Structures are given as structure tokens and as C-alpha cells.
């Protein structure tokens, strides 16, 4: 189901800096969005969606922001727009992010969605509306298809090692 937020949800709201020295993912996840919604982490079921306004994830470069959202079970974030570093971090850790203003305007909290990432096709099951988002660039799809940047780097390092042998 959908959890809806407004514009400019910044990284301090997603995960306050005071928790960034915590390395245990589950403990970190418990503080996700806590100043915005009490006990948010415990309300999420795996596969839920966040639908938000403009500039989602603005502020700091902390990768913990997309990480905690993924950790508590958020599958896809659909927003009118994302801040640059948040978008980059999300792609690098394999959390799907989609720009789709029309869906954001016409979707309410609690709606159910169905998403075909490869085709960029989004469906609001509750309202029966269908939306088409911008397909992701081939370059970024390649990183996501590699399973995120970690796997991409692993492949690159193996190539170098073969050359050096």
C-alpha cells in the first residue's frame, strides 16, 4: 500500500544524523521517518510504496536515507522529483525510484499500486488509473541489472585482475 508524503522530505527527516553512527541495519531502520510519523518503521509491510511530492531526499549525502527505507520494506518510491544525491544513492543500492507527477497528484494514502519497472508502467489498482513514466536510461539500467554498484565494481575489479595476470 501507499504511504503519502509532501514536498521536500529531507534526509534529516528520513533518518536523523544523530543515529548515523549506528551500524546495525535493523536498529537504524527503527528510526526511519520517526519525527515525521511516530513508529513509521513498524507500520510498513514489505512491498509498500512511498508516494511523495517534489525534491524527495534533499539535504545530506547519507546513503542511510534510501537504505533505511529499503530496510524497513519500502519497494519503490514514486515522487514528482528526487534530489540528486538521493537518486544516485538509491540506484547504487538497488532501490527503485520513479518520477511520475500525475500518479502523485491522483494517489491517496492507502491506495494499492502495481508497477512494471522494465516498461515504466504504473497502475493504481484502487482508482484503476494507469500511468506511464519516463523509461530509465540504458546506462542506469545496466547498473541496476548488474544488481547495483557493488556488483558492477566486482566485475570491473575481476577484469583488471585478469589483465594483470
Amino acid at each position, binding site marked *: 500500500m501507499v504511504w503519502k508524503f509532501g514536498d*521536500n522530505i*529531507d534526509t*534529516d*527527516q528520513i533518518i*536523523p*544524523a*544523530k543515529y*548515523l*553512527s*549506528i*551500524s546495525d541495519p535493523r536498529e537504524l531502520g527503527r528510526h526511519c521517518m520517526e*519525527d*515525521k510519523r511516530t513508529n513509521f518503521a513498524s507500520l510498513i509491510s514489505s512491498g509498500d510504496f512511498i508516494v511523495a511530492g*517534489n*525534491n524527495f531526499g*534533499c*539535504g*545530506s*549525502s*547519507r*546513503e*542511510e536515507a534510501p537504505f533505511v527505507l529499503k530496510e524497513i520494506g519500502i519497494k519503490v518510491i514514486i515522487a514528482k*522529483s528526487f*534530489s*540528486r*544525491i538521493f537518486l*544516485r*544513492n538509491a540506484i*547504487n*543500492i538497488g532501490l527503485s525510484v520513479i518520477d511520475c507527477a500525475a500518479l502523485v497528484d491522483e494517489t491517496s494514502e492507502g491506495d494499492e499500486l502495481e508497477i512494471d519497472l522494465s516498461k515504466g508502467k504504473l497502475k493504481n489498482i484502487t482508482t484503476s488509473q494507469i500511468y506511464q513514466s519516463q523509461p530509465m*536510461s540504458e*546506462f*542506469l539500467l545496466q*547498473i541496476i541489472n548488474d544488481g*547495483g*554498484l*557493488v556488483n*558492477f*565494481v*566486482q566485475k*570491473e*575489479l575481476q577484469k583488471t585482475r585478469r589483465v594483470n595476470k
Partner: protein
Amino acid sequence: MGMTMAEKILADHSDKEEVKPGEYIFANLDLVMGHDVSAPRAIRIFRKMGAKKVFNKDKIILLEDHFVPNKDVNSAESCKLMKEFALEQELTHYYPVGRAGICHAFLPESGMVLPGQLIVGGDSHTCTYGALAALGTGIGATDLAAAMALGKLWFKVPETIKITFKGKPSKWITGKDLILFIIGQIGVEGAKYKSLEFDREAVTYLSVSDRLTIANMAVEVGAKCCLMPPDAKIIQYLKERTREEIDISFLESDIGVNYEKVLEFDITKIEPQVAFPYLPSNVKPISKVGKIKIDQVVIGSCTNGRLEDLRLAAEVLKGKKVPNYLRLIIIPATQKIYLDALAEDLLKVFVEAGGVINPPSCGPCPGAQMGVLAKGEKAVSTTNRNFVGRMGHKESEIYLASPLVAAASAVKGYIADPRELLI
């Protein structure tokens, strides 16, 4: 057609004659920086990637500035991990607490940032280096791990917005007022994904310190990077800090280049600016602020913790006492700035006024330690963000301003115009 500053630097680092906005490239990195929040996570990911050695032990900077001196066991463990990694990898540039200070003040100050470089840092304010015509941009921990392993990263070539100023600012206007004014005008998404480029005229009257403050907050309008053309002031600044050869011949944007937008601001009449909670774009000129009583003043951070900033604050605070209900926190951004402020008796002024000096670090800016706000408290701060809960309780409030406004507010106990005290 020609290229903008950002396009030139990205082309130069990807062995291409030319790059165009929207193009995806792999580019080689000159410097890779991580601090005690981003680096520990990146080190764990580096190991998960199966990387054994960093790409170049002289090009990676690991530094402690956020939660140091270690605020708790978790941060102590983070710094321990950084130390072990720095030793194992024999890193040339490893700076624990007491050796450097805030990353974005320390790197330029120590002569590591040079025009034309491509620098990534595990911190969003890495755009600061644009004041010295280096393309600096913030990245997260997985990118940082990849950068340490490969020495290169993927980039999307940004479009460029050019900013030019008309006129000369009055003597009460600092770099902080100018950047707050711009953020107020174009909003927190005003330059999203873009390179924010200032032209030569725009920076003419600005000190290097003011330029660093402006470039530092480019991320608050969503910019990928900020770039300012290097001039004689920059060359002089660099000569005092490095013996490296400095080549600026190719850097300036070509004539007739395609900007996404050109924005001109008349800065002759602007007043000191204050950003109200909870966005840096919520800006008002000081005459429209009203009487807002405050509990704390913070002067420091990567935005405004340089010697020039402390001098301005001391000018206002000299011989004054702050009200008993107000906490004044001063944070020299680096060890060098601390020593210089000591030598100039600036720290004496602050302590005599009733202030406390924090060690060079981010201090309360990210809300973790050394000046956290209680419910309902208000602070005037020279830092860069005033989001909900940024400096403490979610119902506390941060008003962003220049060191002059912050110091005047500390004296008065409410948000005040420095002209009231100094004229």
C-alpha cells in the same frame, strides 16, 4: 558551440574532446574524500566489493569531523575502523580529530584543492570546492567505496545555470547573505541536477572566504556542483598553500555556450538575510524579521567557520556580554583557524562575552552533539540547513544567517541587525 566549466572539467577527466549535458560518462577522479559518517560505511562496502587496495593511496582523504571527539561507543567504533583502514592501505591523507577539522574548510586551506580537478566526497557540501574552480560533488557510501576502489565513477553531464551579479554589495553583506538571497530567489530545487556557475563579474568583489561560503550552499538549491572562474585572488590563495603548478588557461566557459538559464541579481541594495525554519529558501531581509527571542547562537561549520567569519563575529562581540539565558557556541572550522584565532585574541573576545569554544568539528550542525536544541528552543546559526529537527528536537527552530547577524543576535538576545551595533 563550446563548453561550460563543468563540461570542460568532465571532458578533461574522461578523455573526451567534448561532452554534452545529459550524456553519461565515466570520469577519473583527482581526490576522493570520506569522513567519519560516510567512510566507515564505505569501507565495509569496499570490502564487500572484494577490493583489496585503494586505487591510489595519495588521492584518498579520510578525516574525522562529524561525531568527534567520539560522542559514543558507535562513533568510537566508526573512527577505529577508519584508522585501521588508513593504516592497512597506507593512506597519505588520514586526519583524525586534532589533525585537521571540518573537511570542506581543511581541504582548500591545506592546498589540496586545485582548479580543474574533479573531486568527490562522501558529504553533500563537497560542492564547496567550486570556489577554487574544482568540480566537487557529494556522493553516498557505495559511490565512495567504488571511487576508492576504481578511481573513477559514473556521471551524468549536468546542464549549467549561470549567475551574474549587478553592482557591488554594501559592506554589511557577506557571502552568506548573497547565497541565502539566491536560495530565497530560486528555491531549494532552483538548480536541481545543474552546475551553478558564477561569472567573473559576479565574483570580482568577493573574498575567497565569501566564495567558499557561497559555493558551499549550492547544494541547498539542489545543484550538482558550483563553479567560479579562477582569478588573481584565487591564484594568490593557492600560491600561499601549494607548490603545484596551476593551469587555469582552459577553465573558463567558452563564449556563446548554451546555458540552461542565465540569472542576474542586483545586489547593491540587499540587506543582511535570514532563513526561517524549516527550509533554507524561507528567506527574509533583516528589516522584515521582527523581534524573535533566541536561546542559542552557533558560529562555525563548513559554511562559516573560517578565520574571516570569526573576525567578523569578534568585531561585533568585542567588549560585549551575551544575555545570561543565551548560549553562544563558537567553532573554529580547523586546527589552523583555531590557532590563528588564538593568536589574534579572537577566542578571548568570545570567552569574555560568555561564549564557549567547541573543538574544530561539525558541532551541533547535524544535531548529534555539542549544542543540541531542546523542544521549542530557537537558534541563530551560521550553518547551512534549518530542516525539521536538524539541530535537535523536532520542535526546535534554526534561523540561518551570517556571522555578523549571528554575533549581533547573541549580543541582543533576539535576531538582530549588525548595523544596530556597529554603526
